[in-house]
């Protein structure tokens, strides 16, 4: 009984990624291509899984608690900029650089949380201000030059499938442990749906919120590092040029939420991110024009949301049809 249910849950969890894979592979075959043609495709796929998974974690940690965060992109940009610059100056390899990026990003997250906690300005507005501020910082820090590490083969060489899998696995494991099996996580989940009760019971909301911002920041530090190590350069962005990152995490977050009914929520997010990574891979393999890409992504987002928000109605109509047969 328990076993069959477990199996059923596992199958439902894998439903979306597998369906996406099948559809895309079929489309690829139709075009005479293979989705996974060579090592590059695999690398792209696992990099996207890592990026999207971590970004979606970073977004959902705070968004689930009703805290919008427009500054994710700016945090990843600024932490990568600082880490890249220091790696260049101190001539350190990828692992120390990753550590610097994570530490800096966690501090940036903490600062963001600190401003929020001190001023009590609604989080969405604080995040707008912080996004602007961090973009400005990154620009000022490098004089607008950004970072170029294209000649640092040790750092560029970090971009391997193995490392991507390692980073994703470690991040998922840590996040699952942190949010489902620690005191911090227990408090977090309590605050999530019962803010008032939790605070009155004696849970320290401020500390928890600061922790969330720091963790979310640290994740974006990894994302920034991955992208800098991948291309070898970090471009600057001003005037909210960095906020686009946040939007890419919505669809995987919703998909993850759906999958999360059948399996651990964070693993669900990873599976959602996997689906998105497949779509990214397909865009690259089919060399889809970017305007088509953005329209397709937007349509997917809307369609999935339509399903989610009308699931009950859709399912009952479907069942009625079944019954009629």
């Amino acid at each position, binding site marked *: 009984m328990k076993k069959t249910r477990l199996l059923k849950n596992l199958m439902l969890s894998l439903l979306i990624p597998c369906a996406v894979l099948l559809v895309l592979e079929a489309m690829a075959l139709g075009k005479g291509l293979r989705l996974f043609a060579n090592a590059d495709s695999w690398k792209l796929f696992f990099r996207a899984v890592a990026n999207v998974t971590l970004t979606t974690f970073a977004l959902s940690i705070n968004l689930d608690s009703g805290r919008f965060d427009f500054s994710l992109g700016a945090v990843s940009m600024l932490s990568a900029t600082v880490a890249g610059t220091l790696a260049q100056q101190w001539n350190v390899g990828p692992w120390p650089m990753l550590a610097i990026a994570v530490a800096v990003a966690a501090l940036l997250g903490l600062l963001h949380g600190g401003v929020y906690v001190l001023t009590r300005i609604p989080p969405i507005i604080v995040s707008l201000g912080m996004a602007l501020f961090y973009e400005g910082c990154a620009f000022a820090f490098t004089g607008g030059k950004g970072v170029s590490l294209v000649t640092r083969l040790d750092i560029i060489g970090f971009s391997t499938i193995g490392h991507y899998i390692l980073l994703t696995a470690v991040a998922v494991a840590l996040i699952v442990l942190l949010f489902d099996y*620690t*005191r911090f996580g*227990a*408090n977090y989940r309590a605050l999530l*749906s*019962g803010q008032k009760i939790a605070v009155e019971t004696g849970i320290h909301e401020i500390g928890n919120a600061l922790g969330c911002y720091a963790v979310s920041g640290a994740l974006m530090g990894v994302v920034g590092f991955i992208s800098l190590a991948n291309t070898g350069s970090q471009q600057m962005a001003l005037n909210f040029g960095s906020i686009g990152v946040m939007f890419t995490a919505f669809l995987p977050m919703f998909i993850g939420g759906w999958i999360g009914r059948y399996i651990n929520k964070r693993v669900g997010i990873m599976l959602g991110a996997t689906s998105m990574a497949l779509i990214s891979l397909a865009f690259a393999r089919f060399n889809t024009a970017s305007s088509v890409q953005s329209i397709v992504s937007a349509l997917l987002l809307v369609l999935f949301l339509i399903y989610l928000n009308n699931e009950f109605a859709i399912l009952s109509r479907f069942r009625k049809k079944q019954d009629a047969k």
Partner: protein
Amino acid sequence: MEPILTVRGMDKSFGATVALRQVDLDVYPGEIRGLIGENGSGKSTLTSIIAGIQKADAGEIRFHGQPWRPASMIDALAHGIGMIVQETGTIPGISVAENLFLGESSRFRTPLGLVSRRRMELEARKALDFIHADHIQPGMPAATLDLQERKLVEVAKVMVKQPEILIVDETTTALSQKGRELLYQLMNSLKAEGKAVIFISHDLDEIKQVCDTLTVLRDGRIITHFTRENYDDDAIKTSMIGREMQGDYYRSDNEPSWQEDVLLRAEHLTGSGLDDVSLQVKAGEILGVGGLSECGMHALGKALFGSAQLTGGTVETEGKAFSDPRQATKLGVGYVSKERDTESLCQQASIRDNIAIAGLKHIQKKHLILKRRETAYVQKQVDALSIKCRHMEQPVSAMSGGNKQKVVFGKWLGAGSRVLILDCPTRGVDIGVKQSMYQLIAQMKREGKAILLISEEMAELIGMCDRLLVMKDGAVQKEFLRGQMNEADIIRYMI
């Protein structure tokens, strides 16, 4: 005998509002102490300070003779004082076990620093068994529990710590008879062990039945104490409201009466927990609906206003059918929700906005809403209902429960509703205001309005209704007429 708990000279204010002034209180071992007072009299504030939810501005509390300064609710509970709060105290998104050990997950830390869910759930099982809540599973998400089960989880959460003092704040309204009896039993066993209980309730009958001593608060002060021997309804009520009750409490007449026209007619309502309910309310009639909290009567209220998801049935007023709140409002049907704060009012909005919102079409003149007319419209309701406020721009969030309910009444009366569906209109309202509301309902009856009164308070139903429908499991079990209602009969059909 030495008191376990002494409170001396406690002050507390919220901004300009003084909640407590110079409160002294002693609680002795082996007693069940009732706290009673109108809304805003300071009962909840006093107990929440004792339980560590908030801090006093001044004064001293001693527990077992030692100064008592809990850092939080958890801290207080760990050191012997636990409280079951008035509102829902469980968090829906986490499991029962996590709710039971909210804020204490570190107790289940493994050597690796992680929290052991298995151990937590084992402990939770014990706690639930302790209060005989065998049917609740510790691993279930709290969201899947019903209101009563959630309250039981809260009870278990407090009882597992075996507190020296248990504070129960208006908990029983959420419990069925069975749940109540369970709670009384627990309270009595605490009493037998020489511990103490502080019990807060609006229900005078209940409090008299349960408590050994009774302390009355008014406007943040302790007014007087009663012991079981000298309980006297009138004396208690008088001390609560600070004056003698004038006139009738409920209706004075004892005969059912109504006019001929049917103002509200419902046929075969099914769905949302209702099972083929049909009824009609005539002009000048007060139709009561009673039952246990989950019997479907609240869903019925919503369904009659067109805001429930039904699978079948029709509702019409004066021959015109309607199926959503918008049409209902247009046709002169008003609905006062049981959830006053979340469904009947917009908290941040002013008194003005809240009263005017349903009557905009009456305020409009040539389609325009002029502030002057609006002010006059609102002022009329404020005066008619004697709503206590400094000015009508005040946000309703800062008002007391009774005053808020008056605003809700004002909203529908101003809009000229001929049919009023009142779901627990006096819930959490203090006696003084309650009385004026009953008089208001009686007056609406005289004005020929059709009133559907849904209530969990038997006395109120018996006191006010021309006819009473008793519901159980979503269906009407029995109809009583005014003059033929008696509590024992009614309860028989309820359960």
